[in-house]
């Protein structure tokens, strides 16, 4: 209640002020644009730089992928050659290792035959080391005697 009354009084007093000023000759100044005119209205969007464009990123990814696949292809070819190198290094060693193994196998075979001869010396017509198959093809012994 008090507030409304206060407002009313203030408006009335303001009205009185305006009425009083019109009756006098007052020096007034026309409000003009500043010297040099107003600056241009900033209507364009002003966003900070958000990094390279999508096209650049896409191109970059494509380039990286292309290089990667190129290296992969090169690597696959190289891997094949490395495998060939490894295989041939083993092939070159086969005769050497086989010869050594053969000598050992022959020694054991001879020893086994000698043992058999000694054990079966009382059996007439026993041929030590004779194959149970009627086949001249060589077969390694099926079983061995661990001394």
């Amino acid at each position, binding site marked *: 209640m008090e507030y409304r009354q206060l407002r009313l009084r203030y408006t009335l007093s303001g009205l009185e002020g305006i009425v009083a000023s019109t009756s006098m000759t007052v020096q007034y100044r026309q409000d003009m644009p500043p010297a040099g005119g107003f600056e241009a209205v900033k209507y364009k969007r002003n966003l900070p730089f958000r990094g390279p464009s999508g096209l650049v990123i896409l191109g970059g990814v494509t380039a990286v992928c292309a290089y990667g696949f190129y290296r992969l292809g090169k690597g696959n070819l190289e891997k094949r050659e*490395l495998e060939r190198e490894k295989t041939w290094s083993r092939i070159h*060693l086969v005769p050497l290792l086989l010869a050594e193994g053969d000598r050992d196998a022959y020694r054991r075979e001879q020893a086994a035959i000698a043992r058999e001869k000694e054990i079966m010396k009382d059996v007439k017509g026993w041929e030590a080391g004779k194959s149970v198959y009627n086949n001249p093809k060589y077969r390694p012994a099926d079983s061995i005697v661990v001394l």
Partner: protein
Amino acid sequence: MSSYHDPQTSDRPYKDPTPLSGDVPHVKELGVTSAPLKSAAFFIGAYCKDYNEDFMLCKNENRDPEHCLKEGRRVTRCAQDLITKMRENCLKDFDKHWNCLELNNQEYYMCRKPERALNKCMFEKLGLVKTIPGAPEGQTPVHELKNPVYTGVQK
């Protein structure tokens, strides 16, 4: 007295101390472990080509170990000869290379640097060249690539 033991399940190693009969000429076994053998493999292949091929052709005739003892001795003597020559001429490079192989899972591509030194020495002293049969023509062989894809972590 001996009794039969299944070698697969035997708890004792398969040993037979009986020596080779005297009528077979003796040959000293090579006694080289896998890394030096791998290091020397291509030179053995180049140096002992004739003996190796002869032995393998003989084995193709008959798989009986007795059949190719003579050729086998030649193969071993040749390899013995080569290893001796390698040790005489390129001991330092040879040792470096096979030690590198030993430390790198016996992969050639991990040891290109010592290998190149060894190959160079072997070519200069003994005239042996490492060639990989069947490699594509007109391309740098894989052991001479300047910038290979597969390298060790530390070049």
